[in-house]
């Protein structure tokens, strides 16, 4: 018996070999730099002069810094609304685009998915044109409802302008996840429901949504994580303006480092950023452990 379990362990240890390349490279190129960045947060460093150790000064300043607070709030606002809108739309689209009444499903789905593969740097220019006060969007809005916010120079409207672009760019991806989820619900469930007299909404509420619980969980939590790390759209279109109204944390971290040369402070902000994401990741792991994966 001992011999059998020994060879079983030896067999299972092959797993170490498989994961080795990944562990090695991830440690070297992701984990080690992150630890370095944590270390930087205890220093003041403008990259050109030697580092100066300042202990927790960066963190104390951060708590009182209205810009950091603004950025945190902006990030929550952007993420919260985006995640909600994206998932609701993606869900609705998934149901619509996998309806049995629809032909050429793949083609229509592709139209919604297309923005996902477009380059933000490239498309940012177009969106900027469209949002300008003489651009397409205000012109059409004025024709339809008589008035239009001044998108890119109004501190209240600019965040929503960013949300719109981000939703446009991402919803296709999550729609596909929901479609895959829908495909998995056994047809027999629906048949049983129909026999019991459930209409469209009844089926939706009692069959579809519960069956998709795990999909929804996955989609929402990964959406939150990816949205938190969002950088390109704001950077390309508004650069955090006007008046920092679209300055989400990723942009603040970048600007503190590369525009103001405050690399230590920037690192401290990324620690805060990382810790926040950690909380969300713990949620994710808890959800998954209770769900499908589990080793």
């Amino acid at each position, binding site marked *: 018996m001992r011999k059998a379990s020994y060879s079983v362990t030896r067999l299972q240890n092959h797993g170490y070999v498989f994961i080795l390349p990944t562990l090695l490279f991830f440690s070297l190129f992701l984990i080690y730099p992150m630890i370095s960045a944590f270390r930087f947060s205890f220093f003041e460093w403008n990259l*050109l*002069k030697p580092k100066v150790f300042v202990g927790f000064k960066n963190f104390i300043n951060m708590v009182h810094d209205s810009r950091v607070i603004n950025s945190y709030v902006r990030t929550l606002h952007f993420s919260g609304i985006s995640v909600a809108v994206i998932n609701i739309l993606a869900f609705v689209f998934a149901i619509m685009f996998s309806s049995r009444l629809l032909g050429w499903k793949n083609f229509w789905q592709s139209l919604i998915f297309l923005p996902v593969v477009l380059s933000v740097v490239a498309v940012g220019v177009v969106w900027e044109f469209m949002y300008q006060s003489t651009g397409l969007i205000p012109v059409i809005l004025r024709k339809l409802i008589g008035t239009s916010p*001044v998108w890119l*120079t109004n*501190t209240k409207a600019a965040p929503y302008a960013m949300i719109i672009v981000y939703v446009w760019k991402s919803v296709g991806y999550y729609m596909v996840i929901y479609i895959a989820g829908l495909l998995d619900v056994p047809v027999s469930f629906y048949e049983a429901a129909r026999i019991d007299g459930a209409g469209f909404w009844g089926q939706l509420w009692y069959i579809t949504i519960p069956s998709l619980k795990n999909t929804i969980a996955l989609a929402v939590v990964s959406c939150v994580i990816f949205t938190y790390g969002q950088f390109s759209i704001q950077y390309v279109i508004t650069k955090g*303006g006007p*008046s*920092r109204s679209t300055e989400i944390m990723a942009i603040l971290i970048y600007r503190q480092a590369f525009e103001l040369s405050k690399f230590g402070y920037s690192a401290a902000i990324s620690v805060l950023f990382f810790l926040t994401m950690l909380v969300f990741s713990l949620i994710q792991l808890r959800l998954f452990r209770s769900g499908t994966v589990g080793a």
Partner: protein
Amino acid sequence: MAKKVLLIALVVLLAVTFTVGAQKKKLVHYHWTETLYDPINKKAADAFMAKNPNVEVVVLYLPDGDRVNIIRTVLAGGGQIDSFALNNGESAEFLEAGFMVPLDPKGFGKAAVKDVVDMWTPGAINTCGGVWDGVYYGVPFELSDYVAWINVAFMKEAGMNPATDKPKTWDDFVAVGKKLMKVEGGTTVRNGFMCNSKQGVFNFLVQMNMMHQLGLDWGAEKGLIASMDKPDVLARGLRTYTDFVVKHKIWDPALADDDRGGFGTGKTAMFLTGGTWYWGVADYWKMPRTNIEPFPYPRFKDGKDIGGAGYGYCLYVSKFAKDPTLGFQFLDTMASQPNEFIKVGYHQPRMKLSNGAPGLDAKLAAASIPYYDTVFKNELAKTAVWLSSTKGNQVTNMVWDAISRVIYEGAKVEDSVKMLQADIKGLYQ
């Protein structure tokens, strides 16, 4: 199958790129890109390589906004950087940290540093930011000043006389701006005045000019800090600028974000961040030169007689250069085409070339740059000094924040000034 083919193709491509690369000496120079100047700079680089066949020169043309950040990153990371270009608002940070090599007369074929300095107009190296602690580091590449520009075709259209009606005070400026503003169906189609609404530095320079005119010394750190004890004056300066948007409504930021392109395409009637080089830009946008005119910055009725910001670029040899003398030879070549540049309006203060030939031809300058003698040269003597500080970037950001708060968030000027005071005091404590 397709994947295998792709993999092989990739490996081949990689191998090919690695085999390219000779045994030459290599100089890497960090510069900025400008459609009009890039070909002229290339000529200099090519000429240098022709004279020095064993040297390969790579000039990196970077977007002006990113140039400093990229230079800083490469210097810190130890990448190859032999020389670079910085303006006088940027150089202090790097000079203080010791990243540049002092001027080497050998690189210019001269015996002493004084002989090198004499090849440029007196004081040029200083104004261009190339001096630190009494030591010369920079090779001047541009010396310019901002003047005000106005579209005289629009003036005539509005019934004004360009010869007499150009603004002389900031009050005039507002009045003229109101007449030239155009709104159709509720949307602005032409601004009376505009500045770049995305990049803070341009707004900072105009604001700084106003502060200088009001008697605050924003040219040096000491003066800047001292000015924080005069909130009334600060408020007056800030209000004058932000009222363009908020009160007088001659500037609608929503129309366009770039003032130089905006002026060249008729989206604004006036702007305040152009120098002699703008003639070249106007040509680029196909704006007829007869439609536009430069004029001195407006003044405050009771303020100092100070014109727009003066600034310049210098070329520096980095301390990582393996052969600094060669580096200076290269920079000398780069800075030896003042007459080529003046044709597109770009002013270089080079009086003599290293081989003894004359530098900038005054007659050519006057001919290539309309209003050179009457406007630009006059104002050059009265420029507002650009703040020289190792924390210049942060100051610029803070001032832009102060302006943004008022024009984008509707904050009160006094409140914004209070925050600016707190910011600056916190920065320099």
